[in-house]
Each structure stands twice: as C-alpha cells, then as structure tokens.
C-alpha cells in the first residue's frame, strides 16, 4: 500500500492547528475584558484577522492574475482561483462576525455605512468572479477573462480598507496615522490571531492547489483515454 510522505504541507497544517488553539486560549483567557463593550469585543480578534486574510487572499489573486497575463502560464490561473475561493471564505467570516458584533453594540446587524457597504460590494465582486469562471467553457478564454477581472476587481480592496478613513463611518477605526488605539496586551493578541489566520490561509491554499493539480491530472487522463 502506498504511504504518503510527511511533507511541508503537513507541517504547516500542524502549526496552523496548534496556533488556532493558542489563539483561542489568548482571546478568551488572556486578553483583558474591554471596559465599554464587555465580552462581545472578543469577536474583534478573529473579525480583524479574517478581514486581513480576505485582503491578503485577494492581493494574491491580483498578483497571480498579473503574472498570468504576462506569462500565460496556467498554473497562475489556478493560484488565482484557489485564492479567490479561500478569500471568499474569510471575507464571509469577517462580515458575519461583524454582524454579530454590530447587533450586540449598535442594536442591529447591518447598517449601510461606508465600510459595511463596500464590504458587501467586495463580496459580490468576487462571488461574480467565481460565477464568471463557471460560465466560460474554453479554458484559455476563461483564464484570460478571469485574470483581467482579478486585476480590475482588486480596485475594490483599497477602497474597502480606506472607506472608514475617507468617509464618515460608524465602523470603529483602530489603526490610524497616530498608531493603534488598543491596550498593548490586546494588540499582542490581535497580532497573534492575524498570524494564525495567515498560517491557516497558507495551509488551505496548499490543499486547494493540490485539488487543482489532481483535477488537471483527471482531465489529462480522460483526454488520453478519449483519444
């Protein structure tokens, strides 16, 4: 029987899983209770981490799309697709955790203010990216159009990030030009959660890319046998 070797991906999975356990411990047992909002503020750590990884995933999509358009190497199209899918998972998590936090502090889960509105637009843009891919049969055309879309769609990311700085918003602003408005221990826990979710993203990306590679192998064998 074939036994798979323990590889870098397995090591990354293990580190990411351990980091998640430590992050949960830090969020619930080490981070101080916020004076005004109370325990609901503990949503903040993973809410910000999920949003950060969402941005990172879409930055990877942008970079992979640019490289694909320059070189035409289909592997970069697979990186972009994989990263969009994972980015959507984290964007959704950021939005949903934010809705719980909003309900507890503002009294309603959704307010059409700049950050939330641009987050919804960002989510729709990348959901449309996935739908676009499904609607195009020809692989070459699909990869080219998706890459162009991936480059243009990225414009929404800095707008989403800057929305609370450019326009009057209800959404809190934790980091600005004067620094972080957080207690040092809260900031340390936040940084740990961001690193944890970044590791989780890297681990998921490796698994998702393996899936694409296997899919390509299946298509190749089917073509061979059909010929």
């Amino acid at each position, binding site marked *: 029987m074939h036994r798979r070797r323990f590889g870098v991906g397995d090591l990354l999975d293990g580190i990411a899983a351990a980091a998640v356990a430590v992050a949960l411990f830090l969020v619930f047992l080490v981070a101080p209770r916020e004076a005004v909002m109370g325990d*609901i503020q503990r949503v903040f750590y993973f809410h910000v981490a999920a949003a950060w990884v969402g941005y990172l995933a879409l930055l990877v999509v942008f970079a992979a799309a640019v490289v694909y358009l320059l070189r035409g190497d289909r592997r970069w199209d697979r990186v972009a697709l994989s990263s969009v899918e994972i980015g959507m998972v984290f964007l959704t998590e950021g939005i949903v955790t934010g809705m719980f936090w909003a309900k507890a502090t503002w009294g309603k889960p959704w307010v059409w203010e700049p950050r939330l509105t641009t987050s919804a637009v960002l989510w729709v843009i990348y959901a449309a990216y996935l739908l676009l891919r499904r609607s195009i049969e020809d692989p070459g055309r699909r990869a080219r159009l998706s890459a162009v879309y991936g480059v243009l769609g990225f414009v929404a990311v800095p707008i989403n990030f800057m929305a609370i700085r450019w326009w009057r918003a209800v959404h809190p602003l934790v980091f600005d030009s004067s620094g972080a408005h957080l207690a040092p221990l809260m900031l340390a826990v936040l940084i740990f959660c961001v690193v944890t979710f970044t590791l989780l993203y890297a681990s998921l990306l490796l698994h998702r890319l393996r899936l694409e590679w296997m899919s390509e192998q299946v298509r190749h*064998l089917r073509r061979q046998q059909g010929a």
Partner: protein
Amino acid sequence: MAYLFGAYLVLWAITFGYVFSIGARQKRLQQELQRLREQAEAEDQPTP
C-alpha cells in the same frame, strides 16, 4: 454572551465546512484518478 457564542460558532462552522469540502473533493478526485489509472493500465495490457 449569546452574540459572542454565535459569532464564534458561525466562524468555525464556515472554516470547518470549507476544510471538509476540500477534503471531500480531494477524496473524490483521488478515487477518480485511481479508477482512470487502473483503466489505463488495463488498456495497456496486451490481449492474448
């Protein structure tokens, strides 16, 4: 406290849901690859 619990429940449900979906797709493709490889090997065998 209910909102905090709800937020974390949904967060990890989405994460694990996605991890399981990748696992299920990998398993399905692995089986398909195995089937296609066996089929290719059977076709390569010289007929008596």
